[in-house]
């Protein structure tokens, strides 16, 4: 019977199935970070258990690490609780071990979803889990990758398995060429706008079609990263030459005699012709425009040509109320053109958009220009130490600095406001991150999700602009 990519990944990892379909799924790669692991290690210690296979663990500190004051060492972490979490991870990895650990201040440290692929620690055909919902990012490599809770982190550490049930299959085909200035971020925002933040709940989504195949690995990661914002724990893309070329020569990718058989196996990681999906839809890439969120959920999104929606036109009472609440929180008036919205801060970074390609696109936009006067802070936060190094080799840091951006050390930064980078109440931010929830970037902060090119152009103009027409 023809199988979907997800069926293949699932079947190749099932250790045991209960009568009701509850399965033990074997986990190949376990990514660990400082915020969701401490209680899991504590649980192991209390129960007197050892990790099943420490070689599966790749660890780093990224969520609450500051992006400044690295020269001061650990003393540069001013928040005592953040410091405690970082030190606790250090101690836990020392005690229990890992395949590799990139501690705070290591030059290979970075956002967990950037460093996994960068190191070749994420490989096609793997199951990948992490105590972070954006683990879906790794699905770009034809992995079954999704976020788990801390109890599950402990469970995977102790048993190398996850207790779970099979999800349903969804395929989203994106077909055709993207217009100039339209990026992977706009593709995924368009998808979320279409199916809603719960549209993918219970599904594993395969992103397919000519548009997806034409995207770089960085672009595919951006799309899979936000599968969770459509409610799907896992997003994925089939293996092709782009995948294989990306992996060649990476630190933990197979080498020597193992490379060829690995590649031969990886090439089978795609949906068979005639495979059955529980839900399937197609988007025409030519119709996708640059997107900007206006509200407090990623599904509250419009194109840059649009105006802020009017709740009075919404018939459903519950939705209308949610829109009114969002507009109040965001400090926006209905029918305001998106391009009239002025911003206070700009954030280019996060596991969605902090890879070298994202930084190149943003740098090309700001080169030779200056950040607008009304923009109080424009941040560029590379996804990892290696991305930072690469960008500096290419001179991107100078372009950003000359334009008035701050060039920071790697980390999650202002995506989630757990570290010193955050918005103050009422501040409005053009952000390349993934969540515009109330208070996500700081209590009272107002987030508009956009692509790196759109964020960069907004920084220069001080308000949103249509990157397609902006020169």
């Amino acid at each position, binding site marked *: 019977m023809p199988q979907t990519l997800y069926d293949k990944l699932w079947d190749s990892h099932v*250790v*045991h199935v*209960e009568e*009701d379909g*509850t399965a*033990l799924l*074997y986990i*190949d790669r376990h990514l660990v970070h400082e*915020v*969701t692991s401490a*209680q899991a290690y*504590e649980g192991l210690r209390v*129960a007197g*258990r050892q990790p099943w296979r420490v070689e599966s663990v790749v660890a780093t500190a990224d969520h609450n690490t500051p992006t400044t004051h690295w020269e001061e060492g650990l003393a540069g972490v001013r*928040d005592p*609780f*953040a410091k*405690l*979490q970082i030190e*606790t991870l250090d101690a836990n990895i020392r005690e229990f071990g890992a395949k590799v650990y990139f501690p705070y201040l290591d030059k290979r440290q970075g956002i967990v979803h950037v460093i996994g692929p960068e190191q070749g620690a994420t*490989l096609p*055909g*793997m199951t990948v889990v992490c105590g*972070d*919902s954006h683990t879906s990012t790794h699905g770009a490599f034809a992995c079954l990758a999704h*976020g788990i*809770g*801390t*109890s*599950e982190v*402990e*469970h995977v550490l*102790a*048993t*190398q*398995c996850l*207790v*779970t049930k099979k999800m349903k299959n969804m395929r989203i085909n994106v077909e055709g060429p993207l217009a100039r200035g339209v990026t992977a971020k706009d593709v995924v925002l368009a998808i979320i706008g279409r199916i809603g*933040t*719960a549209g993918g*709940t*219970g599904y594993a989504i395969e992103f397919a079609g000519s548009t997806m195949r034409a995207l770089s690995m960085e672009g595919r990661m951006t799309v899979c990263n936000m599968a969770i914002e459509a*409610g799907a*724990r896992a997003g994925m893309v089939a293996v092709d030459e782009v995948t294989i070329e990306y992996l060649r020569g990476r630190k933990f990718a*197979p080498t020597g005699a*193992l490379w060829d058989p*690995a590649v031969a196996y990886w090439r089978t990681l795609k949906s068979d012709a005639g495979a059955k999906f529980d839900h399937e839809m197609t988007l025409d890439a030519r119709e996708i425009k640059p997107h900007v969120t206006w509200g407090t959920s990623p599904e509250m999104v419009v194109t840059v040509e649009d105006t802020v929606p009017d709740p009075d036109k919404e018939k459903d009472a*519950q*939705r209308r109320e*949610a829109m009114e*609440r969002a507009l109040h929180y965001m400090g926006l008036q209905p029918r305001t053109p998106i391009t009239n919205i002025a911003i206070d801060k700009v954030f280019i970074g996060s596991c969605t958009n902090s890879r070298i390609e994202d930084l190149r696109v943003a740098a090309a936009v700001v080169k030779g220009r200056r950040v607008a006067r009304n923009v109080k802070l424009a941040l560029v936060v590379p996804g990892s130490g290696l991305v930072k190094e690469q960008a500096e080799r290419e001179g991107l840091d100078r372009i950003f600095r000359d334009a008035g951006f701050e060039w920071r050390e790697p980390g999650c930064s202002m995506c*989630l*406001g*757990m570290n010193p980078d955050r918005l103050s109440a009422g501040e409005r931010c053009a952000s390349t991150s993934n*969540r515009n*929830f*109330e*208070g*996500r970037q700081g*209590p009272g902060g107002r987030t508009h999700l956009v692509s790196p090119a759109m964020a960069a152009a907004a920084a220069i103009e001080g308000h949103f602009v249509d990157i397609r027409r902006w020169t």
Partner: protein
Amino acid sequence: MDKFTVLNGLVAPIDRANVDTDQIIPKQYLASIKRTGFGEGLFAEWRKDASFVLNQSRYKGATILLGRKNFGCGSSREHAPWALMDYGFRSVIAPSFADIFFNNSFKNGFLPVVLSEAEVDRLFHECNAFPGFRLVIDLERQTVASTDGALTMHFDIDPFRKYCLLNGLDEIGLTLRQADKIRAFEARRKAQHPWYF
């Protein structure tokens, strides 16, 4: 993990769809390496508003939360069910849940109950109309009922999850009963796909 059998509790309604885990427990409260003490941060931003449900005296001591669709979306933080439990809640009823929050809840003896939109609507009406409105959640029978039994609704739950909750079982211990199978699977995989090891 504590057992979950029958819960007879006061109901607090949060009449919003897509309640995300950043609202349930804002990140400034995540800075702990323990599983307890998160109740203080539960809905911290919304609690600044004096009229917010949890600030109303009629809902003081509530153990059942009533929510709308896609409850618990967003971040995977297990601190969300930890915070709900630490505050005193043992169950949340909603028409649908985000997957990760749903999973995390079961691992902590916290029961997410899925009822239809119409049933949840009905409960919101009852809850708003009658101060002191309580519900009885009987896990064994898989029912949600008013205390007088006049209103009874049935809910579905995975048999395995139900079994674990009713008995307060440690899932790791259960899985380790399959240790031989895991070892055999691992050996096969290592022989077939050595590049993953």
